[in-house]
């Protein structure tokens, strides 16, 4: 954990900002809500990565989770959009200005229920952004209805018993060809933070499905989205440590114990082997791990799948590096002569 520690010591980071500069407005979410702890890890990650807030945009749909962008990165522009439709808004924003880094925060209802279609197509286009699902298996803001990730057969106070099988958003992301699929747990802040850092350094859609308990409507011990269940059943695939570009990877593990994945900006995520070997670059292994976790009801967390070779949407569209939003009036309006030429073709 070299990085984090180091940066934490110094008050101001490489861009001269204190952590406070990455905070947002006071949260209006419930005390203890998992979403709040994820917000703080976003703050930590951005601070420790020394990102300039103006390079970041925050995006969300509608829900308690989707409110949270107001509670972090107060110095960044943000857009709290529509329920389930944030992916399209994010796509347009990032195509129009590819120099921006985007952090999208959504909920399980926002993504898996109403947002299923846009989510799949966002991933399929490989729009470069961090897409976080704060997954509590319930509709928080509307007071406790089932979402599409609620447990099969679980019972909730208002909603009754859920007859349907949950949607696994990591699996969805995987088969939609995401190059960065991770699962984590709000109760594991370090892992959340390191994964977010890596995701922020990845040039493609990085999907983080983070179990984020709703203490008000879905935190009973038997719920797979509760704190206690998470603590008891979390089974990390590896211990993850993000190592920035400008640092030698000198985290001292014995050889063989660790593997690393290189991110587009030259930084890396170091994966320390725990009980079993796991190779996140192996797609079928990734599918298997998700299937096993599903069958054995464990919370397998960590970097589930990684592939840095997929073209981003902007590259697929053969776009210039410069933000379209910065084109000058002259660049935007072709010349008078060009118009005459074009019109010739219609004579």
């Amino acid at each position, binding site marked *: 954990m070299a990085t984090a520690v180091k940066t934490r010591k110094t008050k101001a980071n490489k861009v001269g900002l204190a952590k406070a500069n990455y905070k947002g*407005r006071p949260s209006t979410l419930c005390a203890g809500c998992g979403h709040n702890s994820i917000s703080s890890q976003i703050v930590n990650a951005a601070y420790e990565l020394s990102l*300039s*807030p*103006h*390079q970041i*945009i*925050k995006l969300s749909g509608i829900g308690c989770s989707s409110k949270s*962008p*107001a509670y972090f990165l*107060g*110095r*960044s*522009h*943000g*857009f*709290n*959009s*529509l329920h389930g*439709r944030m*992916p*399209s*808004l*994010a*796509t*347009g*924003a*990032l*195509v*129009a*200005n590819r*120099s*921006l880094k985007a952090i999208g925060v959504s909920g399980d209802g926002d993504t898996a229920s109403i947002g299923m*279609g*846009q989510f799949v*197509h966002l991933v399929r286009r490989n729009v470069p952004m961090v897409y976080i699902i704060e997954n509590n298996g319930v509709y928080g803001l509307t007071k406790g209805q089932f979402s599409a990730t609620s447990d099969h057969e679980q019972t909730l106070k208002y909603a009754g018993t859920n007859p349907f099988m949950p949607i696994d958003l990591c699996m969805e992301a995987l088969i939609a060809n995401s190059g960065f699929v991770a699962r984590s747990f709000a109760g594991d802040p370090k892992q959340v933070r390191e994964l977010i850092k890596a995701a922020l350094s990845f040039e493609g859609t990085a999907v983080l499905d983070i179990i984020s308990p709703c203490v008000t409507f879905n935190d009973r011990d038997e719920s797979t989205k509760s704190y206690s269940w998470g603590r008891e059943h979390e089974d990390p695939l590896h211990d993850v440590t993000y190592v920035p570009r400008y640092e030698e990877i000198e985290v001292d593990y014995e050889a063989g114990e660790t593997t690393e994945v290189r991110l587009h900006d030259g930084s890396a995520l170091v994966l320390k082997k725990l009980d079993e070997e796991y190779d996140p670059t192996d797609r079928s292994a990734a599918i298997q791990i998700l299937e096993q976790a599903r069958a054995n009801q464990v919370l397998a967390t960590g970097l589930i799948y990684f592939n840095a070779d997929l073209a981003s949407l*902007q590259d697929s*569209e*053969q*776009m*210039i*590096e*410069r*933000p*379209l*939003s*910065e*084109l000058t*009036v002259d*660049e*935007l*309006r*072709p010349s*008078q002569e060009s*118009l*005459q030429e*074009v*019109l010739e*073709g*219609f*004579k």
Partner: protein
Amino acid sequence: MTESPTHTKQVVNDFSMVVATANGSGSLTSNLALIRALFRMGIPVSGKNLFPSNIQGLPTWYTIRASSDGHTARRDSVEILVAMNASTFAEDHAGLSAGGACFYADNLPKPRARDDIIYYPMPIRDLVKEVNPPRNLKDYVANMGYVGIVSEMLGIDLEAIRGALLTHFHGREKPVELNMGMITLAAEWARDNLEKQDPYRVQAENKTEGKILIQGNTAGALGAIYGGVSFASWYPITPASSFADALREYLPQLRKDNGKNAFAVIQTEDELAAVGMAIGAGWVGARSMTSTSGPGISLMAEYVGLAFIVEIPLVIWDVQRMGPSTGLPTRTSQGDVMFVRYLGHGDTKNVILLPGSVAECFEFGWRAFDIAERLQTPVFVLSDLDLGMNLWMSDPFDYPDEPMDRGKVLTAEQLEEIGEYARYRDVDGDGITYRTLPGNEHPLAPWFARGTGHDDQAFYSERPDDWERNMERLMRKVDSARELVPAPIQHGSGKARVGLIYYGSTESAVQEARARLSEGLEIDTLRLRAVPFSAEVKQFIDDHEVVYVLEMNTDGQMHKLLQLEVPEQATRLRSLTQNNGLPLTARWIEQSVADQAGG
């Protein structure tokens, strides 16, 4: 061709010719060759394609109108029929005007002959055999058969045909030769075997000098490009798809930056995504748009409301087709006016531009962005299938005569000077507040966009006064559009008792009707070019005892919006609508007005 002694006085450059085929048979190439040839001979033309909502085998009618007087509207009468489709021959044959010419493929079962029209059988099959083209091209070549015969009998210059084909095939000689082979063969056959007996002929004139022949969707896309569109998202839908096609064709020519695209045109998964993307792009500062038709508009409702309240500029180009619902995807209408004006739940209210010609499709194509960015709100442009997908003659488009207006956007430098910033504070008192764009590095720049209630700093607020103040400002802002939008266009002395208000693609028919009416009852006309209405509109209504509102929808939607605009004169306004999928004709307008106005 030997001139018949017996033939009646000639009618030159003034007829409607209908080519009846089955779609998917490649007849479009032939029809374009004919119309372009006439155009190049200096004869004013227009071309309307009446096609089914399917891909192959159903009846299609392509109407070419030649009019020395320059009339381009649809007209009820058909003087020349080219019958290539057995399934509609009887009907088409019955619809031909007395004295008309009936060219028909001689293998079609011929309906009982009329003695008031002239028949010209066409041995298409034999001619094809003679040319013997590759199998996959048989249909195409067959269709060139009527091009040759009709050209010969009407006097269309084969060189003009050749030139038209060259344009069509982007200068590739091979296909041109193949087709010309058939065409000349057919023309020769006609010269040797047919005797000219009908009065209709064409003669070169110079009335298309310097003009262009273009579709409204192409014109609008070019307009958008010269308006600086840098982001466009779309989902395929008839009749709007060709708008995006044109963007995809011309942007690469006009906005490349050493090999890379200085633009993006994204095909989305649906219209919710299309408008969502456009809003995202508009938020970060791109000139952003989406193009669609009715069903897409319905799907965009929620996101449009968000753009309205967050105040994001974007352009939504609606090529109207017949609704409700899927309706008639290949038929024209003006049925989205009311819905678009109030699109979005709550109190959403939108600005609408109404192009009446391909030239205005181009002009509004660029103007729409200036208005959208000035007002920071969605601007709708309502075109329709007739205007968007049919071929119209026009003077070449004027290069934008105004500098681009990017609206109120504050840079980091400006923020530094001012020293304070609130996204929704009405500092200028005009209801329009200042934007900052994501990426602006000044610490004052950031604001959090949200569809929820907010104070002037864009912070969440449920306070009654914040909400009221903001809505009051928004209504004022959107209403102020009346000073920004293109003013209406009036014709007539202004002294007539009767006025006619209309908009959009009915322009051509009204122009023609005006000419016809001028003989009879005097009438002043006003063509709306936007909603909300400029002051002239109220004035025009004040100045006329009776004002007809002409439109192609069932409910008289613009008539309603006008009634709301002038409650004092509400009763002067009379709704005049026809909405059956066909463009209006001058005759229908003339008669309806005459009837109602009591001659």
